[in-house]
Structure formats: C-alpha cells, structure tokens
C-alpha cells in the first residue's frame, strides 16, 4: 500500500513529528511504500539545514534526511509556507534576494500541487500536527 504523509507541526513545539517519524518507519518496515512526505505549515521547521541539536540522540532534521536516503523518499517542503517563515533555497531563494540553501539534505522546495498529486496517487493519507 502507498502512504502519502503530511506534517504540519514543528519538531520543536510538538510531539507530532516524532509520532510521524515512527509511523513512517513502521509503515516501511511492514513493506508499504512512502513515496513522498509533504512538510506544510509549521512542519517546514523539520527541514532547517542549520538546526542544531545538543541532544545527539534526537536529531529532528537529520533523521528525516537519513530515512529519505535509505528509502528513496521525496521530502517536499511547501515553498510558500517556507518563504513565509524565512526559509529559502535555490531559485525561490534567489527571487527573494537570498542565495542561501536553508534546506537539509534530501529536502526540496515545491508547491502544493506536489501534495495533491501524492494524495491522489496514494492509497492512504496521514497528516500529523493539527492544521486548523
């Protein structure tokens, strides 16, 4: 079965990301697929390249990068949600006059169409973190 995942919460303000990570791990271990994870709203804070975690056992950003690399997961950060919160990368950043790359490895900026596509093509949709 294919799962589309959307994460709306910041790892620094909610346990929802931890739950999401463990859910994705369990889904993959059970032989299902997670083609894409969409980071929306406060969920974009999962992607900060320079987030620093004194607690080595809990790196909220790097573990997504590592999981994505191991399983070929497309980590998509919503571009408008990111720009609204000052996160930039690539052409979107250059348009804003910032030639920086704020995204950790494995993450990319793209639009809401990516989430719609994943939700249409997958058998199940799970969101983590309250939206509204």
């Amino acid at each position: 079965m294919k799962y589309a995942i959307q994460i709306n919460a910041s790892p620094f303000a909610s346990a929802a990301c931890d739950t999401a990570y463990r859910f994705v791990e369990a889904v993959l271990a059970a032989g299902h697929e997670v083609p894409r994870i969409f980071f929306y709203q406060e969920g974009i804070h999962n992607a900060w390249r320079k987030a620093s975690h004194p607690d080595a056992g809990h790196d909220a950003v790097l573990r997504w990068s590592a999981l994505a690399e191991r399983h070929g997961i497309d980590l998509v950060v919503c571009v408008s949600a990111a720009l609204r919160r000052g996160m930039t990368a690539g052409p979107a950043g250059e348009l804003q006059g910032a030639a920086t790359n704020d995204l950790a490895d494995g993450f990319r900026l793209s639009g809401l169409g990516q989430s719609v596509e994943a939700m249409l093509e997958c058998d199940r949709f799970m969101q983590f973190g309250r939206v509204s």
Partner: protein
Amino acid sequence: MRSFHAIRARILKKKWLFVFSAAPYSGSASQELLDQLMTVAAFDQPVTLLLLDDGVYHLRQGQQAVQGGPREISRLFAALSMLDVPEPLVEQESLHERGMSIHDLNQAVQLVQRPTISELVSRHDLVVGL
C-alpha cells in the same frame, strides 16, 4: 509541472473533505488550510468544506480586518464559490454551544447535525485538517 499535475488530477478523482475546527486569526493555519483547499479545487477535484467546533467562527458576522493585520478570512470563504466549492457545511451543535445560530453567519451555509458527521466523513476519500 503544474499542467502535468493538472492532467493527472483530471484522471484521478477523489472526494475531499476539508475540516476547519480551530478558531481563525490564530497564526496562518486557516490561510494555509484554505490555500490547500483552493489548490485541490483548482485541480477540478470535488471538495466539501465543514466547519465545526471553534471553526464556526470563520464565518461569524461582523469581522473587521484592521489595517496591517491579517486579512478578513471570511472573504476568502465567500470567494470559494468561484472554484465551484459548494456552500460550507456548518455543524449546528457547534453554533448552538457558542450561543450562535445560522443568522450570526455572514454567508449562506448548509447546517448539519453532529450525529451525521461520521457518515459524512465515511462518504469522502480524503479528510484534511481535522
């Protein structure tokens, strides 16, 4: 890429339910959930909009945006008909519990009763925002 997604979306069609259950004007959450709803609707997908709990305040009459503050959210709801999104569904009990009735809302809605919500959810393929 957008047109590619749009073509795929026309082939694949699902029934979407968007649920607003938290009060408006608490950060950008309402705006971003509406953005997602509008993207889905723009892909020609059938969308249902449900307001319950404090989400009913999104359509409270008498909202006045202040200069430099957030935009008046109910105007965005009013514009959804342009994307063929049907009248919002509003849970009657949520209104009643907040001392409100349909007359306190600033646009036409369809009232639904709490016992019917689970059946409403089961009629949709995707639920976003609950």
